[in-house]
């Protein structure tokens, strides 16, 4: 009897604690949404309230009028989705090759890719910018890479260096390694090409892993900031994160429109999370946290 009471008490304490922590993580988001829908006067007269009687879209309208948020939204969408397609496809292709095919230079090229994980982006950021700017025959450059802007201020400045990273390859390789070899042997005897064996036999078997990788790639692409800020600096090429940062810098007292912009910059990843939670859990367990 006494033990039961103690257990009940402990359980209630646990729930109170859990709700308090959840309030700490969730409440700021609710407050962000509430600020975004509040008329300006009310933001200053009653900043803390969560509900407003005068629900309005004015802040969104103001945000979209001051800065081309929709254009930035589209830019980010194109870059993030493009990154997902190339990373999943080329990552799976290379991962499959490392896991299932025998070829010369397999070990060497694998350790080469492995070493790239040790090099932080900060070190390569300046020379990478120079490589993109002086890329031969791109963006008005001549064969020596002189005279134009190269890939700077184009989608390629993000899509090309990020088309397939070592992480995508390792991630996919792990899953192909769990599949048996004899599926390929049988297909080879039947005369299937190596690409068809990959595309029609092996890839469908690791579809959940491919979706997980796709989601992780989308999130990091959508949320990335520093590199897009460096290589996309013209007004119409900015991503939504860079646009939001610019907006925050120029209009840092317009909290309503600022929060409206923040809602727009957060929404896609949040929606993806809600609809694809089971893949998320898988991804988090495999790759740890974001940086």
């Amino acid at each position, binding site marked *: 009897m006494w033990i039961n009471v103690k257990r009940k008490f402990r359980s209630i304490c646990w729930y109170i604690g859990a709700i308090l922590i959840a309030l700490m993580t969730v409440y700021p988001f609710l407050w962000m949404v509430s600020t975004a829908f509040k008329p300006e006067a009310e933001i200053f007269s009653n900043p803390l309230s969560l509900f407003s009687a005068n629900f309005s879209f004015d802040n969104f309208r103001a945000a979209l009028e001051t800065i081309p948020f929709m254009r930035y939204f589209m830019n980010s969408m194109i870059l993030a989705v493009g990154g997902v397609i190339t990373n999943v496809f080329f990552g799976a292709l290379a991962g499959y090759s490392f896991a299932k095919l025998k070829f010369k230079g397999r070990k060497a090229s694998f350790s080469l890719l492995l070493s790239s994980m040790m090099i932080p982006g900060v070190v390569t950021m*300046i020379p990478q910018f120079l490589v993109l700017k002086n890329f031969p025959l791109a963006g008005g450059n001549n064969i020596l890479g002189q005279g134009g802007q190269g890939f700077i201020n184009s989608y390629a400045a993000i899509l090309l260096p990020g088309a397939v990273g*070592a992480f995508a390859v390792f991630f996919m390789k792990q899953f192909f390694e769990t599949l048996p070899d004899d599926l390929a042997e049988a297909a080879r005897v039947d005369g299937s090409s190596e690409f068809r064996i990959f595309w029609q036999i092996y890839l469908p078997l690791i579809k959940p892993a491919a979706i997980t990788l796709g989601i992780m790639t989308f999130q990091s692409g959508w949320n990335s900031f520093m590199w897009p800020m460096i290589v996309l600096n013209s007004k119409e090429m900015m991503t939504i994160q860079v646009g939001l940062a610019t907006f925050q810098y120029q209009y840092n007292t317009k909290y309503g429109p600022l929060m409206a912009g923040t809602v727009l910059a957060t929404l896609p990843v949040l929606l993806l999370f809600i609809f694809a939670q089971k893949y998320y859990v898988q991804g988090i367990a495999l790759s740890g946290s974001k940086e």
Partner: protein
Amino acid sequence: MNIWERDEILKRKDYAAKQNFMGRLFVAPPVILFLLFTLIPMVMAIGLSFTDYDIINAPNFVGLRNFKNIFTDEFFFIALRNTCYYTVLYVPLGLLLSLAAALFLNVNKKVVSLFRTLFYLPVLSSTVATATLWFWILNPQLGLLNGLLGLFGINGPAWLYNSRLAMISIVMMSLWAGFGGNMMIFLSGLKGIPDVYYEAARVEGAGRWKMFTKITMPLLTKTTFLVSTMLIIGTFQVFDQAYILTKGGPGNATITLVYYIYNQGFNNLDMGYASSISLILFAIILVMTIINQKINKAEI
């Protein structure tokens, strides 16, 4: 050898040659991109660090001048000190917070997965969005934090406008934004500890604290080391938060190493000098990465 056997051998050879070619073709894209956008830039960074390259004029070789200048550069040391200060505050607190949250959620209740999701929510949002939200939360007059402090009769400070509190504000924001991710790693570490250990300890009459210090902590050593080195690698590259929340200010209190490299390289166009600082940062991060990988392989 009859004709069938010969045919079989030829077929095998054919497969092997095909595989050799296709295998290389399939791994070509990441390998080529690695050469173009990691290896060549890495070599270029080393080369640039011995020059005075400014994008406009051709680079001149200046020997070790850039590296010598670093040691007398007041701002480099301010940036280094700020980065270390951020690391010293953030890493232990981040570790503690995410471990505590994981231990808290490591119970047998159906609602755990709901709360796990809610605790993880801040991790999803971009650092820019989170920092913009915190810029509003930390507003001295209207912000959520000072409003909350006001309920307890505390007059909250001007967080971001005070050179002592600015970095602490950035740490608070980063803790809020990041603890959920490491909590997940600790949770999977905790799931890996077999229940029999705890059952045996219970039979022996061990209390909760004893089980924690004698079973949980020792078995989490590897996870803890991994998370700490990962956190340190991350904190030495902190940029977004400082850029959005304080623009490095007030009075350079939140200029970080990456921020300083970015400023030198892309605002002052002193790409040679920026490259030499980035190589020093690389050395620091490399040490952490090697320790991290050693731990990852070690059987602790």
